[in-house]
């Protein structure tokens, strides 16, 4: 990439330091805007508490042990629900993508369910499983399994035909082609689909925890009920941090799982 050429500044790559500094700058500006807004007289503290108020609410609010318990409960539900979603969607998605008959069979149901908003399924889940752990895991599962299946099927269908023909002209069985050619060829797209879906899993966690007695989502709603807006912001910040952390993990591990991808 040419550097120092004024006409190409849009495409000039950044040094890691530049990247970090710019990212931090946006966060600093955001915090500054927040503080400035809280000084505007017409903005009620209930809507937008300032840093002092947030700090006070945090100190008088739930103890650290409660935050950790919520964190643990939420994480467990997300990981469990998502793990089950992967266990279901991986073989199903690959089968749908690779075998036209399976595709034709599952398409109507999967496509329809993909468009049903998970909150619409919430009453059903509560009816069937009450407000226990199973209900929450189910909500997360239902929220992610359909889109994940479709994304994986698409990844399989997008494998260049030339790779499959390579397998055929080498005399490989269909099974070997699937395992040694199709799956690795689709792996990068499957990985990215899993990463995106995991983000959605956290959204559905909060939806699931609206009813219940523990978890970040529950605490968030409880804080709102008690008008502790500072704690609501705390919960949102916590979710944002967790989301960012898991995405960072996915990005770091991409090279481990897919060493051949540039």
């Amino acid at each position, binding site marked *: 990439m040419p550097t120092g050429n004024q006409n190409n500044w849009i495409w000039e790559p950044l040094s890691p330091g530049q990247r970090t500094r710019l990212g931090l700058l946006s966060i600093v500006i955001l915090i500054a805007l927040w503080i400035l807004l809280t000084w505007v007289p017409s903005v009620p503290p209930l809507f937008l508490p300032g840093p002092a108020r947030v700090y006070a609410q945090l100190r008088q609010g739930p103890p650290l042990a409660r935050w950790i318990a919520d964190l643990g409960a939420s994480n467990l539900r997300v990981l469990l629900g998502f793990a089950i979603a992967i266990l279901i969607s991986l073989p199903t998605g690959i089968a749908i993508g690779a075998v036209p008959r399976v595709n034709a069979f599952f398409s109507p149901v999967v496509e329809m369910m993909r468009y049903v908003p998970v909150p619409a399924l919430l009453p059903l889940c509560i009816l069937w499983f009450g407000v226990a752990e199973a209900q929450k895991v189910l909500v997360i599962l239902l929220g992610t399994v359909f889109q994940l299946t479709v994304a994986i099927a698409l990844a399989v269908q997008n494998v260049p035909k030339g790779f499959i*023909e390579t397998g*055929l*002209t080498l*005399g490989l069985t269909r099974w070997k082609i699937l395992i*040694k*050619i199709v799956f690795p060829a689709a792996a990068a797209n499957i990985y990215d689909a899993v990463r995106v879906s995991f983000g959605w899993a956290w959204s559905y966690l909060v939806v699931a925890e609206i009813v219940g007695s523990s978890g970040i989502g529950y605490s968030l709603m409880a804080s709102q009920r008690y008008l502790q807006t500072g704690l609501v912001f705390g919960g949102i910040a916590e979710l944002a941090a967790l989301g960012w952390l898991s995405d960072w993990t996915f990005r770091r591990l991409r090279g481990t799982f897919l060493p*051949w991808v540039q």
Partner: protein
Amino acid sequence: MGPIVEMENTSFSFRTRIPSFGEQPLLRDFSMKMVSGEIVAMVGPSGCGKSTIARLIAGLLIPDSGRVIFKGQSVSGPSRERGLIAQGDWCLPWFTVRNNVQLGLSDPSHWGKAKQLLEVAGLKDSLERYPSELSFGGRQRVCLVRALVAGADVLMLDEPLSAVDAVRKTSLEQTIRATLKAAGASALWITHDLDEALLVSDRLLVVGGRPLTILHDEGLERRPDDIQGMIGSSAFQMHRIELHRRVAELWPADRL
């Protein structure tokens, strides 16, 4: 002993959604024979149907009428005995050279012979590398050995060196030819480079027109050990010039 590959009155056209009125099929009653152990070069203008012929012989396409015969049997689908090096870059990037080459290996005892082929192809020291670390010419050689190791008796090479620079082309041509000969395989070498065809093949087929016809069929005399000598000889050069002239007459100017 009969020909190893025979195309018998095969016709083929791609079914397109928009029918072109009065358009001729790609192949109509096309016939061709290949003898065991010979490298046949097929030279023709772009889009005339050479790749289609390669894919028909490989069994990836089924002719509309007529048949493809391999070792006396009708071809009904792809198999390891009829290998294909398709146009493009089809080394599997997630496997090392070793794993690529072993992909079609059904009998571990054949690995010794495979190592010999790797040596002839110049890949002996690249076994643990990934295809991305090799040049395009290197990757094509990997695909070549991979197909031979899987057990290809006849190999279709579809413009294998079109993307290679002129400097490296000649040595790669000879390496590929040597590897094919070492494996005892027959080959259909598709190229649009007439000079490349002259340097690698035992028999030259010039094709063109629509439907595709064989315009020129010539066995070539070879002196396999002295390529430079052959290129330098005036007999070769005169033959080459004559062929270029003839082919220019046979092919209509940029109509396809």
